[in-house]
């Protein structure tokens, strides 16, 4: 099946070729119909730039962009049939919600009756039918976000682009809107690409997550594949694998703090075969109620552990067990640029 969006070695440099900034470099990406893709990465890694190139607001300085299989690198945004949701919502302040949502259909010169009907349906989809005649200024942030979504969905775009749509909302509303977003995407069957720097958001929403760093692709795939097996140190760090210990008999590895097990050094139980064993000294203990965050110094570096219980104190000697199946071997030994 032809990908809805395909990037072929796409790059963008701001400024001159000599002393500009490469915001995105040599990016390949294929987005399948009806899927939810997230672009994930730290601030400044080129997520917005990538999205704006797909939308046509900026032109790639290298590579091609294909939409529905045809080269759209030079197609202006108004002819790409793309629904964009901006972080700042960008609702037209002088129009009612109905007029905002109907804008794209009016631009397509659809009959007034059809515009009104479909704008109404889109508003209903996001639960705002009752506010159809209000202006955006009279709505809360969450409601404005819904209108922005309805406006983008109303044109039945071939792809829905969302640039950190939830980052202006408070934590509770954000979680609620994530569900809402997923529901709308599933109900409409739309192809969606969402930009975020929140890994929880990416894990929850994605069919495919694409992790960027410094304008380059680090890893992509289904969250259930990527999360347990980060390919390199950058991805691991970004996904919360805090430990990069030197383990005898292994190359570069990582392990999540919640997978590190601690026991008292004195118990002298038999060596576990399914775990790698290290010796260390407790360096600090942070009490968190249900568990403690414990930093342990070992010969192979500092290890952070999530430990159920509050039975260790700084200075105590401990045995550290790293379950073999939780150790993730990394492709790179060096620290990539950007992973500080």
């Amino acid at each position: 099946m032809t990908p809805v969006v395909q990037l072929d070695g796409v790059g963008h440099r701001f400024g001159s070729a000599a002393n500009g900034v490469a915001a995105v470099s040599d990016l390949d990406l294929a987005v399948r119909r009806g899927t939810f893709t997230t672009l994930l990465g730290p601030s400044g890694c080129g997520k917005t730039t990538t999205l704006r190139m797909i939308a046509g607001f900026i032109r790639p300085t290298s590579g091609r962009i294909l939409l529905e299989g045809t080269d759209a690198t030079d197609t202006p945004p108004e002819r790409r049939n793309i629904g964009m949701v901006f972080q700042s919502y960008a609702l037209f302040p002088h129009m009612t919600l109905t007029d905002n949502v109907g804008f794209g259909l009016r631009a397509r010169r659809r009959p007034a009756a059809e515009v009104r009907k479909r704008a109404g349906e889109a508003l209903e989809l996001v639960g705002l039918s009752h506010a159809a005649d209000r202006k955006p200024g009279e709505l809360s942030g969450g409601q404005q976000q819904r209108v922005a979504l309805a406006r983008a969905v109303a044109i039945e775009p071939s792809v829905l682009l969302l640039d950190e749509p939830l980052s202006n909302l408070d934590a509770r509303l954000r979680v609620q809107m994530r569900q809402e977003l997923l529901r709308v995407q599933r109900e409409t069957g739309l192809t969606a690409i969402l930009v975020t720097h929140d890994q929880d958001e990416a894990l929850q929403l994605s069919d495919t997550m694409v992790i960027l760093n410094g304008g380059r692709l680090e890893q992509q795939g289904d969250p259930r594949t990527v999360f347990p097996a980060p390919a390199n140190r950058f991805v691991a760090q970004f996904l919360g694998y805090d430990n990069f210990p030197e383990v005898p008999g292994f190359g570069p590895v990582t392990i999540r703090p919640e997978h590190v097990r601690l026991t008292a050094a004195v118990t002298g139980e038999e060596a576990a075969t399914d775990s790698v064993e290290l010796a260390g000294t407790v360096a600090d203990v942070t009490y968190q109620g249900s568990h403690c965050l414990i930093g342990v110094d070992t010969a192979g570096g500092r290890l952070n552990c999530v430990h159920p219980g509050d039975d260790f104190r700084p200075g105590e000697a401990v045995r550290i067990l790293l379950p073999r199946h939780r150790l993730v071997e990394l492709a790179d030994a060096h620290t990539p640029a950007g992973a500080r």
Partner: protein
Amino acid sequence: MILRRPLLSLLSAIAFVIMLGPVVILLGVAFTAGSTLTFPPEGLSLRWFAAALEYRPFIDSLGTSLVVAVLSTAAALALGIPATLALQRGAVPGKAFIENLFMTPIIVPELVLGLALFQQLMVGFNITALGTLVIGHTVLLLPYTVRVVGASLALADPRLEEAARGLGAGPVRTFFSVTVPVMRPGIISATILAFITSLNNVPLSLLLTGPGVATLPVEMLNYVQSSFDPVVAAVSVVLLALSVAVALLTERLVGFNKVFGR
């Protein structure tokens, strides 16, 4: 309110008296039946308005003033709106510098500006007094149109135009259905501000008046230099009424709150 914040109320009251007191006195003098500029007036009459109407220079200069105000306001908008659009939305190199350049007429003393224009345009190029007046006022008003329209654009989300383009509107449709409405409050306030500023200007007009061509404020100044009777007060009231009328008309048409508030 008054009891709660006595100091604030007192200060506001003083400010009102200082600002409006002279206006009230002027109004009184204009409607006097007597023949001196004294307050309180000696009886009420419209005789000084009638006298003003019979004094040709006032009527002629009022016409000149209105023509100059209308033309220079229109010209300042026609030049200022595209300029501010380019500055706010376009990728203009040296933006800050150009922005400051548009502000210079505010900084340069008007008399200096007037003298320069007089030298270059009237003497140098033989442009008529009326033409020079319109050009001079346009220069004077340009900072207002650029700034005020620019402010409404700067307040708006720069992504609005992109949103419209993304939704399928071409550049022209985007301009008329999004950019223009966004600028509208700014355009309206710039129009009022520019019109009133032109109508009441003295320093610049003073230097650009030629034989038989003067604006109303300049003619009033001339009049006061030779005679001192309530006619000037009556004319002042007319000028004041005109300014207020422009403001009220706008208020009726669009609502002041929409123009100056948000």
